[in-house]
């Protein structure tokens, strides 16, 4: 699981891209979760990084789970329709609490 906080914009999106690559490549089979609960701003550059990661996860045959409740994250995802690319959750427990799923 990757937990992200603060503002994801053109300055910080490259770091997120690196972290997501690591998340998806280190364990190419487990449940991939990105916790965006503490993200206070998501720019289109950050959105693009998340979308690329979703495609990468799909190529690996699994979904990318996003945990988000703040409007700063959910609104950009919804208004662009990109929320369809992810499994959306409101809490980390929603994902990791699934029976039979290892919590990585």
């Amino acid at each position, binding site marked *: 699981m990757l937990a992200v906080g603060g503002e994801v914009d053109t300055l910080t999106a490259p770091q997120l891209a690196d972290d997501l690559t690591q998340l998806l490549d280190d364990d190419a089979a487990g449940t991939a979760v990105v916790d965006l609960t503490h993200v206070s701003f998501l720019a*289109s550059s950050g959105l*693009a990084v998340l979308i690329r990661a979703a495609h990468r996860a799909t190529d690996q045959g699994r979904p990318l789970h996003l945990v988000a409740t703040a409007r700063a994250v959910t609104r950009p995802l919804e*208004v*662009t329709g990109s929320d369809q690319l992810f499994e959306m959750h409101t809490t980390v427990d929603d994902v990791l609490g699934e029976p039979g799923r290892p919590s990585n």
Partner: protein
Amino acid sequence: MSDKDSAGSATTVGGSSIVEVRTTARASFIPTIRAVASDLAARADFDLDAISDLRMAVDEACATLVDVAAPGSHLRCTFQVLPERIQVHAEVEATAGTTVSTDTFGWRVLQTLADEVAVQHLPGADGHATVGIVLDKRAGVPTR
């Protein structure tokens, strides 16, 4: 609000309010500009989705312009607060012939977030040009 906007200036012209923020054209100042956008929209009673959309749209417009700005030039962002909407005009000085690409993911997002958006190219003197983005955001949720 004139006591709050030390980063810019506020004047009232014909019933609308204008706030202008000018920074060095550098990505590190964009958080300040989008905070101003968000603050103005909140004070203008924009709904929460519209505030979020404007903040993201202004961020995208400024990031796009900073990318094409001439080294050492300024980013000027003017907000005109009108009844039920805010019009934003952001511009930078760039090398003549510089264009803003509108076939990018960022531009498509910008078009989705704003009610109206357009690029302006104005040729200037000494091999320079002004490149700007004008966008319009209404206070309520757009019907799309």
